[in-house]
C-alpha cells in the first residue's frame, strides 16, 4: 500500500477535526474493508485516523425499547452480546455470519455501516429494523443514511458513533453467500416492529442495500414465508456477475426472504 500519516486521537472531537481538515484522510476502526483496499493500492489516503482509542464509541446497552450499539462494537461482540441476543436474536445471528471468525474479531458495526458495502450484512438489517444512526453531528434514520452502493449521508468529517435500534416484535435473516468471497450474494432481513413490517435486502441490488416494498406489503398482509416467496423481484434492479445473473439474484431474494421469515418464526 501507499504510505500515509497515522493518527490515533482519543476524542471524537479530535478525530472529527482531523478528518474534516483533510478530505483525503480516512477513518479506520477494524479496517476489514479499508485495509484490503489499501493493500491492493485501490485507495491512496493521505492519513489514516484510527478511531479505536475513542472510548465513547464503545459498548452495547438496552435503553428501554431501544438497543444502542457503539460504533466500535465488533461483530463478535454483537453476536455474543446478551442484550442483543435477548432483544434482537436475528441481529446477533446475522453478526455471527459476517465474514469469517477473524473478520468478526476485528470488524466493527460502525465501520460496516459507514462504508455501506453493497454486500455487507448490516445495512439491510438496519433498514429493516428502522434503526437510527447517531453520528458526531446528528441522528439519521437508516432510510436516509444508506444512499446506494458505498454512499451514505455522512458528510466530511462526520463519524458514526452509535446505532439505535428499536426492539422488534419479530425479526429474521437469511442469506446466500458468494461461493468465492463469502460476502452476501443475496441477504434478506425481515422485521416486524414499531416501524411496521420492513424488509431489507443486501448483496443483490445493483445499487446497494434497499428495502423491498412489495415484500413489505405482502408480509404486512400475511406474515408467513409463503407470502414473500411468491413476490418476484425485478431483475432490472439486481446486480449480475460471474457468480450469478441478475435474474438469479432476483430469485434468491425471494428465497432468502421466505427463509428469513421462517427463521423469524
Amino acid at each position: 500500500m501507499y504510505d500515509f500519516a497515522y493518527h490515533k486521537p482519543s476524542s471524537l472531537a479530535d478525530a472529527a477535526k482531523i478528518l474534516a481538515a483533510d478530505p483525503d484522510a480516512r477513518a479506520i476502526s477494524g479496517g476489514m474493508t479499508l485495509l484490503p483496499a489499501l493493500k491492493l493500492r485501490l485507495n491512496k489516503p493521505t492519513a489514516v485516523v484510527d478511531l479505536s482509542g475513542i472510548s465513547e464509541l464503545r459498548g452495547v446497552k438496552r435503553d428501554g425499547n431501544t438497543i444502542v450499539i457503539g460504533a466500535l462494537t465488533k461483530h463478535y461482540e454483537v453476536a455474543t452480546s446478551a442484550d442483543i441476543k435477548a432483544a434482537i436474536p436475528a441481529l446477533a445471528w446475522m453478526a455471527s455470519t459476517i465474514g469469517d471468525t477473524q473478520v468478526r474479531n476485528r470488524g466493527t458495526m460502525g465501520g460496516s455501516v459507514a462504508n455501506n458495502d453493497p454486500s455487507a450484512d448490516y445495512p439491510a438489517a438496519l433498514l429493516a429494523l428502522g434503526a437510527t444512526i447517531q453520528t458526531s453531528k446528528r441522528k439519521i434514520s437508516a432510510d436516509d443514511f444508506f444512499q446506494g452502493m458505498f454512499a451514505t449521508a455522512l458528510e466530511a468529517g462526520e463519524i458514526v458513533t452509535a446505532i439505535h435500534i428499536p426492539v422488534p416484535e419479530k425479526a429474521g435473516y437469511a442469506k446466500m453467500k458468494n461461493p468465492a468471497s463469502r460476502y452476501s450474494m443475496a441477504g434478506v432481513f425481515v422485521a416486524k416492529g414499531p416501524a411496521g413490517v420492513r424488509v431489507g435486502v443486501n448483496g443483490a441490488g445493483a445499487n446497494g442495500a434497499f428495502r423491498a416494498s412489495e415484500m413489505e406489503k405482502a408480509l404486512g398482509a400475511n406474515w408467513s414465508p409463503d407470502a414473500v416467496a411468491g413476490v418476484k423481484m425485478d431483475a432490472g434492479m439486481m446486480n449480475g456477475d460471474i457468480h450469478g445473473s441478475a435474474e438469479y439474484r432476483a430469485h434468491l431474494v425471494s428465497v432468502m426472504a421466505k427463509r428469513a421469515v421462517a427463521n423469524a418464526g
Partner: protein
Amino acid sequence: MNVVAPFEGIGASVRRKEDLRFLSGRGHYTDDINRPGQAHAYILRSPHAHAAINAIETAAAQAMPGVVAIFTGADLAAIGGLPCGWQIHNKDGSPMAEPKHPVLAEGKVRHVGDPVAVVIAETRQQARDAAEAIAVDYTPLPAVATMQAALAPGAAQMHEAAPGNLCYDWHIGDKAVLDAAFAKAHKVVTFETTNNRLVPNAMEPRAAVGDFDPQSGDYTLYTTSQNPHVIRLLMGAFVLNIPESKLRVVAPDVGGGFGSKIYHYAEEAIVTWAAGRVKRPVKWTADRTESFMSDAHGRDHVSKAELAVDKDGKILGLKVHTYANMGAYLSTFAPCVPTYLYATLLAGVYTTPVIYAEVKAVFTNTVPVDAYRGAGRPEATYLLERLMDVAAAEIGMDRVEFRRKNFIPVDAFPYQTPVALQYDSGNYFATLDAALEAADWKGFEARRAAAKAKGKLRGIGISTYLEACGIAPSAVVGSLGARAGLYEVGTIRVHPTGSVTVLTGTHSHGQGHETTLAQLVADRLGVPIANVDIVHGDTAKVPFGMGTYGSRSLAVGGSAMFKAMDKIIAKGKRIAAHLMEASVEDVEFDRGTFRVAGTDKTKTLTDISLAAYVPHNYPIEEIEPGLEETAFYDPKNFTYPGGCHIAEVEIDTETGKVSMVNFTAVDDVGRVINPMIVEGQVQGGVAQGIGQALLESAVYDADGQLISGSMMDYTMPRADDLAPVSVATHTTLCTHNPLGVKGCGEVGAIGSPPAVINAVVDALKEYGVKHIEMPATPAKIWNIINGGRKAA
C-alpha cells in the same frame, strides 16, 4: 542401533518427521530466506492482454527513493527466452510452432500479467512505488481470449512464428481402422464438453532469491520449485548461459506445487541475472494477485467425443477431437499435456479396440497453461467417464454394468491399448466392487427418496478411472519429443556409526518424503527412521534429479534408492564376508543384520559401516573404503494406478447449491508404504477434483482480462464446501519397479470430477438434464432447474 521397530517399515502409518518444524513455525520456505545486503524486486506487468510496446520511460522511476536498478526487455535482449521442454510434431511430421518466450517482454505483451520491467529497490514497497512511476507507451491490439476467437478467420495474430495462432495439429491412432469400426456400430454416442481452466493456487505464492558471489562467480537461486535440477539445467543452459558448476539451485520447503512449480519461470531468471548485475542478492515474492496472472494455469480443453457401441453394449471404438489452450506462450511442459499425457489415456480401463484422437493446441492471450495435478489425465478421464454415463443412458444400460462389461479382464495383463500404453497390472472389478459396497450403492434409492421428502434432490455418480504416472522410460519419451530424460537419482550414504543420509533427486512439497523415503530405508536396511535423513532440493548436495510431479517420487525416485541400497547391501556383504571369514555367497542380509547362512555368526550394518570407514581389518586391495552408493534408475514403463470413485450429492432446488454428502474412493496405487500419507494424498486430490467439478473456474472476458483474478472471485474449496472422504486401497503390484508401487498423488484429482458431475446429472435427471458443464455452480444449476420448470 540397528534394531528397527517393525512399525516403521513399509506399510506403517508412521507419523511424519517433517511435521514438528511445520507445526512450530520453523518451516523454511523461500520467502523466509533473507540474504545479507538483499534488495527487492517488483515486476511491472502488462495490464493489456495484447499490446505493442512503443516505449518504456524509466527515468522518473529511477529517481524514486530506494531504487537500485530498473531493467526492461532491452537489457535482457542478450539472454535466451524461456525454453520449452517438449516438442510435439504435427500430423504432417513438421515440428510444432515454438515462438520465443522472452523473460521480459520484447516489443509486445501477450497476456495480462506478462512481465514488462523489473525494479530493484531497497524494500519491496519502494520497488512497487517506483514501478508505478514507469511509463509504458502501449498500443493495445485486438486480443484473442478464447480458442474459438484465436482460430477464427482474421483473428489477431499473436506470434509471427505461429500462423493462425496454432501451436500444433497432432493425432494418434489409426483413423481408417476407426472409421471401419464406426461403420459397424449399433449406435454412436456423441458428447461435447469443456474442461474448465483452473488456477493451481498452491498456498505458498512463488518466490525467488538470486545471489551472486563476485569473488567466485557463483550464482545461487533459492526458488519455490518442484525440481531444482531441472531449473538449473533450463535456466543455466538455455537462458543465462551459466555452467552447472557455477549455478546452485535450492528449493527449500515448498508450500504446495500441484504442477505449478515445475516450470522455469521468468522471475527465477530475472532475480538470478539481476543479482549478477547489481552485485547484491535480489528477492522477489509474488503476491496472490500476481500468482493468478503468472503461475501456469491448468486444463482448458474443448472436446468432442464419439463412442461406437454394438447392440450388446460393447465398445467398438472411440474418436476424440480436442482443442487445448496453450495460453500466450509455451510453458515448460505444456505441449505434452494434451497429447502424450491425455490422448494416451483415452482407453481408460476399457477394452476399446480402436481409438483415434486429434488435438489442436492453440495460442490465446491468456496466462500460459501447463500441467496441473493430473495433467492431461484428468481431462481424458473426465471426457471418458462422462461419456460412459451419457452412452449408458442412451443405450438404456445400467451405468455400472456398462462399465463392467467393457473392463479389461483381470487375466489380460499386460494389456496393450490402441493408444501406445501397455498396462502392467490392475483389477478394476475389485476396486469397483469395493467402492460400490463402501458407498452403499444399493441403498442409494432409499436415500434419494428420503432427500426428496425433505425437498432436496440427491444424486450418486461413479467413475472408474485409470492414470499413467511415473512418466518413462527416457528413450521412449525422448522419441516422443521430451527434451529431458525421466530417470531418477538416489544416493544412500551410510555413515561410520550407522546413521543414513539419503540424497534424492525428487522433491517434497507436502508429500511427506522425509518420512516415506526414510521408511524405505528402515524397511530394507533396518535403520530407525530417526537415524535416516532425507536430503532433497539442493543441487549442491544431491547429484542430480528430475524432481517431483506426475506421482513419480516413489515409483522412480524410490526405485533409484532401492537400487542404491542393492549396491550398499552387495558391498556390505563383501565386507561382512571378510570380517566373518566366510565366502560372499554365504552371507545373507536382512534388515540390518549380515549373517553367515546357517550359522549364528552375524555382523550389524554398523559393524560394517564402521569397518568401511575405519578400514583397519578390511579387504582394501579388493574394495574401496566407505559405504555410499548412488543409483540412476530409468523406469521400464509408466505405472498405472486406477480405481473407482463414487460421489453422492444433494441439491437445494431453491438455490441450486450442490452439497457434497459423501465421497468414496477405492484406489489401486500399488504397494502402500505409509497408509496415512496415501489417504491424505487421495483426500487432497479429491478436494481439488471436487473444486474443479463444483467451484473453480478461471474466467476471462472477451478482452482477455482475468475476471476471476483473486480469491474474491475464484472459488477455492473451503472446509464447509467439502464432505468427509472415505479412502480405501486395493493393491495390485506394479510389475516393473522393485517396490511394486504405482503412485497416489494425482488419483484423487483424476477420478473425482466425473464422479461428482455424474452425481449432479443423476440428481437432476427428473429435469431431463443430460449434462452440466464444470463447475456446477448454484447459478448454473438454478438456470437448469428453472429452464426445466419452464419447459414442463
